[in-house]
């Protein structure tokens, strides 16, 4: 295979393409500052993210990083600081998809806005960070990548400098982000203290060694033994969970999400709630499966870390859905619903067991991919509504289907898919999560599965409320024909089509996800 003859670092091509695009945008802005050539800027960003997507898909198809006979196996770069495997490429794909959609949609959204080039380059930088999170294989690179995605995000949320909502959202996002990253670093330092290493595989080795010592009753002699420092390790792991919870908008660090999503420009809300969340999950997946092998870690710290995720999953999905059900503001409802979805995906980690769990984890991965389309699409519809200036509440959205049936069909698809109504992509991933949880079969997972069903049923209420608003309710004000911004429409329609097309095309997705999950868990 020709691919094998490329040097190893080319495995990072999807990430490099993203960062290259960001740099190119900076250069464009340097060459002609304050450019409002929206076609050029949005085009560059879209082309870059599509190229990244294409390369990632090609790598997956060609078997880069996969564990098959023909494949290269996981490619470790820079002494294992980065790793390119199925998981990494899969999540890079999700990030690239969302970035492309957001870039296209922003073409119309950014009409008459200043800071266009900055906007796109920040988006690309954040995407780079997220893609790097997917490949990161050491707590160092994970933290750096996390910050690389967070810092541009803070700026993006508050990029509407004269909009008080945007600024407030940016502030709150930043405050909680800074707090959680401080906690995350402290957690890293404790894990490092307990294990003496920051590379995930090395941490795992130390922990396994420590658990052998515990099991064998060997007196820890060197004084460096991890077994002595179980408490430190446990506290560190707990703090790491805090960091992930922030990135994925899970309880207890979810407070920023409704504020940030509501105040931010809608394409950015889409970007954060889809791509950023996926990236948060990929590091959670990787860290907990690679660095803290369940059995050995349990020996050392005395409690299974899956419990943390069981509790987080249930609480997060319940909090998200109940809060969403009480909202009057569409964007805020979507924000809370995205918290609820974080809860669903957390099942993927709660279901990890000593000898498996790849089924439920791959289901979580699939859910994130579908979510990348449907949630992005939903937020882009909000962007469209903001573009039209129709207001923010459910009532304001009343009767939009009269004027814009195509977009409203797309919205219907997103909503029902988010709710997990069967004909759409969202149903599959939710179903797989459900059956995956059942197959694990422990009591805790049964409770989780039950919570999933109850919450899905509840979520249907508020999702259908939005569909009802646009399709059934009468408009509260007479409105003239609405404009049809081409790019926004294109992005929404593509997202809708993909949400539907994923239904027949779920086979390859499921295969890729299962393989990737099996690889990291195995």
């Amino acid at each position, binding site marked *: 295979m020709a691919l094998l003859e490329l040097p190893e670092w080319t495995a990072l091509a999807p990430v490099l393409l993203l960062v290259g695009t960001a740099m190119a945008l900076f250069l464009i802005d340097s060459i002609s500052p304050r450019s409002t050539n929206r076609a050029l800027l949005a085009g560059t960003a879209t082309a870059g993210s599509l190229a990244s997507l294409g390369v990632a898909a090609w790598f997956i198809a060609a078997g880069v990083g996969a564990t098959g006979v023909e494949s290269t196996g996981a490619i470790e770069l820079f002494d294992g600081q980065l790793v390119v495997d199925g998981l990494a490429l899969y999540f890079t794909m999700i990030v690239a998809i969302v970035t492309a959609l957001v870039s296209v949609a922003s073409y119309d959204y950014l009409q008459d806005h200043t800071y266009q080039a900055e906007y796109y380059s920040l988006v690309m930088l954040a995407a780079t960070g997220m893609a790097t999170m997917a490949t990161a294989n050491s707590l160092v690179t994970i933290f750096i990548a996390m910050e690389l995605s967070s810092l541009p995000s803070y700026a993006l949320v508050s990029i509407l400098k004269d909009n008080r909502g945007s600024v407030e959202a940016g502030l709150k996002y930043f405050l909680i982000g800074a707090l959680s990253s401080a906690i995350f670093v402290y957690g890293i330092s404790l894990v490092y203290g307990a294990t003496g290493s920051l590379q995930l595989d090395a941490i795992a080795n130390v922990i396994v060694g420590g658990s052998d010592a515990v099991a064998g009753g060997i007196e820890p002699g060197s004084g460096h033994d991890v077994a002595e420092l179980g408490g430190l390790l446990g506290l560190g792991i707990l703090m790491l969970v805090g960091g992930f919870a922030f990135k994925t908008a899970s309880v207890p660090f979810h407070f920023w999400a409704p504020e940030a999503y509501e105040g931010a420009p809608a394409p950015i809300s889409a970007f954060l709630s889809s791509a950023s969340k996926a990236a948060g999950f990929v590091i959670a997946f990787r860290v907990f499966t690679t660095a803290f092998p369940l059995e050995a870690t349990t020996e050392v710290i005395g409690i299974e870390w899956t419990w943390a995720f069981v509790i987080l999953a249930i609480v997060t999905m319940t909090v998200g859905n109940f809060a969403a059900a009480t909202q009057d503001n569409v964007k805020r409802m979507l924000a809370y619903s995205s918290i609820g979805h974080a809860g669903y995906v957390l099942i993927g980690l709660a279901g990890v067991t000593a000898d498996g769990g790849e089924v439920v984890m791959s289901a979580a991965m699939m859910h994130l991919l579908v979510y990348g389309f449907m949630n992005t699409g939903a937020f882009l519809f909000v962007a469209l509504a903001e573009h039209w200036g129709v207001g923010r509440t459910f009532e304001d959205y009343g009767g939009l289907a009269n004027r814009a049936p195509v977009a409203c069909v797309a919205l219907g698809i997103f909503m029902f898919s988010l709710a997990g109504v069967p004909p759409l992509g969202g*149903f599959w991933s939710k179903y*797989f999560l*459900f059956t995956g949880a059942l197959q694990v079969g422990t009591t805790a997972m049964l409770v989780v599965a039950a919570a999933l069903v109850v919450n899905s049923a509840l979520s249907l209420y508020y999702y259908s409320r939005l569909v009802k608003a646009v*399709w059934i309710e009468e408009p509260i004000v007479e409105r003239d024909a609405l404009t049809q911004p081409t790019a926004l429409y294109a992005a929404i329609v593509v997202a809708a089509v993909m949400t539907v097309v994923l239904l027949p095309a779920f086979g390859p997705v499921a*295969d890729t996800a299962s393989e990737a999950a099996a690889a990291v868990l195995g």
Partner: protein
Amino acid sequence: MMIETLIAVTLVGALVTFVAPNRIAGKLAFLISLVPAGLSLWLFAAFDGSGNALLDGDLAFESQVEWLQFGDYAISWFVGLDGISLPLVVLTTILTTLAIVSSWTPIDERESQFYGLLLFIETNLIGVFVALDFFLWFVFWEAVLIPMYLLIGVWGGPRRKYAAIKFFVYTNVASLVMFGSFVALVFGLGDEVTSFALPEIASAMLAGGPEGFLGLGGTTLASVVFVAMFLGFAVKVPVVPFHTWLPDAHVEAPTPASVLLAGVLLKMGTYALLRFNFTMFPDQVEAYAVPIAAIAVISVIYGAMLALAQTDLKRIVAYSSVSSMGYVILGLIAYTQWGVGGATFQMVSHGLISGLMFMAVGVVYNATHTRMVTDMSGLADRMPVAVGILVAGAFGYMGLPLMSGFFGEFTIFFGSFGSEQLPYSQVFTPLAMFGIVIVAGYLLFALQRTVFGPYHLETDYEVGHAPLHDVAPMFVLLGLIILLGVAPDVIFEMITDAVDPIIANGGEL
């Protein structure tokens, strides 16, 4: 590939209609819908299958394509037709075409969206009846809800929002219950089952039933799943006490939606009961025969009583559907060839008759703008053709011989009365038959008040003849009703052929 073509034509047609201009949408949808109607008739003519699709039958137009693999289970695109599903497919396509024609008059806003949704419903209804993989089936099953929800919600009557939500929530919760329990069942079946193909699951069930799951023993699990699925489908059918969504939905829905709702959507419930509960759980059918029969009889009587108390024509027809579906359940639980076959026949027959009734009521409403029995009388003077058909339909409902209703109800009673499977069948059957008397009572009462007597209606315009395109579909339906009443073997033969294997597993042939 014929089935795929059928589905694809309706789906593409739905999309095309959706974006077509409002002006031509109705005619366009009609032309498009002729294609599946013709195709399904051709399928009917070319049908060469035998036996039951789930029980090693010889399927017609079968096709199976690998779809995806999740964990240990494969999911595939698996469709085919047998004697039970084919009549329902034909019913669906014809009824859709007629419903489209009958909406030309009442629907006057957002037409393209309306007709697009109608065609989309047709797609999914066909899918429900042809799918033989549980997942595929469930996808179509649920996909019916969304367009129906919108049809009621957007084009319905004054309380349409309430009705739409109620319809959606009831049926969706029911689906969730059913879905969850069935998945648990499949897991409970253990390693032998490696896909969600219904025939494979059915044979595993009949071979020994589930091993147990989540701490439940095999038998317990089967019972729990049986009950849960029965409840899930019962909402859709609907049977008392899960029927409360139905009158609201029917009354508020626009006429064409009511036609499809009563004509086909209710049949999804009984069809699913037949396919799942009565095919896969013969032991449980036996064990729960008495309560189910009791529910059936209660539905018959209670539905009829409720209808008697109504003054809204549409509400009367709606409640009478509850009553009619009670007969179907009774026929199924009898578990005899006549009973189950008759029930299946009754599904088709009731689809035609209730469709006809709703259309007729719709035509009357178009002209009078009221459906209240108390508001009008002597309509026969002004619109004799439409009223004549309304009366004919009512007689079909009452089970007049030479109309399809008679054959359906007769075979059901015949089958259930002689059933040895069903305890106290000699008690249940006469009780249910008493329902016919009530039906006759309320229908005749209502007709007498509205149709006959001196003309009275407070309007500021002249009520005249209904337009031809409103009346023509009703003639087609009436023709079909009489055809089936005169020559029930047109479909009854293939129905019994498909039903026999089911009975052979538990009932009495």
